[in-house]
């Protein structure tokens, strides 16, 4: 009975849906996290009686046919790249991006990754690094005796050196844009990597080319909305239940068939 397999495909899809929602809720407090949504499509149809087929030699055609669908499939779990809200932390090296861009990070492997998580630190050499210790690009070193680190909206880092009244600019953090941000590959640790779908990275500066500007002392919160996740969770759970009911209905029908002749 086909209904069994159709309902099974529905259960599988809803299971995946709950998995995606669970990951969103688990990352509700992850800085720079972008939520994912599971998207579904119907499977192929068997056209038992095809619409428009000739119904008689008088030239009449069937106005409607018989289409039996085979269930559902998951087509993707695209990320919603919308802006998360900013939370003030007061930490000098916490930077939030308001706009489209990403911070560019140099990985130990020599390749680049991109992130929206701007909770940076200084390493032993005074370089600006991520929480994993990977340097932010271009590499900026803050002198050991400097104080009063200020980062402006364009990403310029200026410090006050001892014996000087004017601030000194030690570098400018760049921002990278992608034409299709949703096409980036998540590699965990709040990092993304470029893919053929995302398009080539366009390195630029904050405040130019729509890359957005920077807010020192703030962090971008996850763009997960608790209410919508919870309602999606309920919907997914109920859909799963309904599909399992179809399985038991099909099972009962089969049972009554097999029990027909004693």
């Amino acid at each position, binding site marked *: *009975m*086909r*209904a*069994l397999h*159709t*309902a099974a*495909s*529905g259960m599988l*899809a809803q299971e995946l849906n709950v998995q995606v929602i669970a990951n969103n809720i688990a990352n509700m407090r992850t800085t720079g996290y972008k939520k994912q*949504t599971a*998207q*579904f*499509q*119907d*499977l192929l*149809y068997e*056209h*038992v*009686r*095809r*619409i*428009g087929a000739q119904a008689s030699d008088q030239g009449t055609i*069937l*106005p*409607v*046919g*018989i*289409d*039996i*669908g*085979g*269930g*559902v499939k998951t087509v*993707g779990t*695209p990320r*919603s790249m*919308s802006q998360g809200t900013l939370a003030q932390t007061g930490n000098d090296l916490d930077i939030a991006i308001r*706009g489209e861009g990403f911070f560019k990070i140099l990985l130990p492997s020599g390749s680049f990754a991109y992130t929206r998580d701007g909770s940076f630190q200084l390493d032993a050499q005074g370089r600006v690094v991520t929480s994993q210790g990977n340097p932010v690009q271009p590499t900026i070193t803050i002198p050991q005796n400097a104080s009063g680190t200020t980062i402006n909206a364009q990403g310029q880092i200026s410090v006050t050196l001892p014996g000087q009244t004017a601030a000194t600019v030690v570098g400018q953090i760049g921002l990278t844009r992608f*034409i*299709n941000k*949703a*096409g980036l590959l998540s590699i965990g640790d709040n990092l993304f990597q470029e893919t*053929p*779908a*995302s*398009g080539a990275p*366009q390195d630029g500066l904050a405040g130019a*080319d*729509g890359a957005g500007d920077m807010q020192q002392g703030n962090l971008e919160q996850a763009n997960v909305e608790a209410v919508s996740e919870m309602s999606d969770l309920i919907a997914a759970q*109920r*859909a799963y239940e*309904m*599909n399992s009911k*179809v399985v038991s*209905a099909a099972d009962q*029908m089969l049972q*009554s*068939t097999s*029990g*027909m002749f004693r």
Partner: protein
Amino acid sequence: MENTLLVGLSKQVALERQLDVISNNIANVNTSGFKAEKSIFEEYLRTNAHEDNFVGADKRVSFVQDRATWHDLAQGSTQLTNNPLDLTIDGDAFFVVQAQGGERYTRNGSFQINNTGQLVTTDGNVVQGTAGPITLQPGDSDLTVSGDGTVTVREAGNPQANSVRGKIRVASFDRPQQLVKSGSNLFSAPAGVNAAQATTSRVIQGAVEKSNVSSVGEMTKMLEVMRTYTSIAQILQQQNDLQKTAIERLAEVPA
């Protein structure tokens, strides 16, 4: 006497197929832009036998035949997502996408942008505008889609003005029932069915159209199918018992 069995069997075959349709609807209860399928049954009268000794109305036997499934094209509920690339059509029209094998029509407006800046479906099929694909330039931001489908952005070089990037094609059909579902949320138009530019529908940005499957209705129908199937199975069983008894009784030879 075999008629009962055959009539019952015809109904059971039809019910199984109806359950297939229902299960596909329920499996797609969370599929954006999905349109439910409904089954239609009809009576199939057996033709009269020519060399027929019986007279009266009891000689006509009617079977059940599954006639058709039709698309329930009612508007699904709208879920706000605030994603600028999620579009919904308010009205009975379709987005046009270029898929392998030609133009296809869809109600699922959760679009993406591909690596060349074109507006595409989640499958990567290019969404058609009134003059070719909608292509965004690097640096474009604040994408806005107006009610008639016009896509405007703020260009990097000229942030004050709105730059038009195209107009999304919205197609309507005189007889949308003639569209054929080809899976992946797509409908295809058979030969001779032509899409017209929709005039009465409106594009809404930041929302997706959910599946229009009514879960309560489908569950009720499913129970109905199941119970009918079971009761027919019972009738068939009783008929079988009847035949068995008849054979046993008639075969009893008085000593």
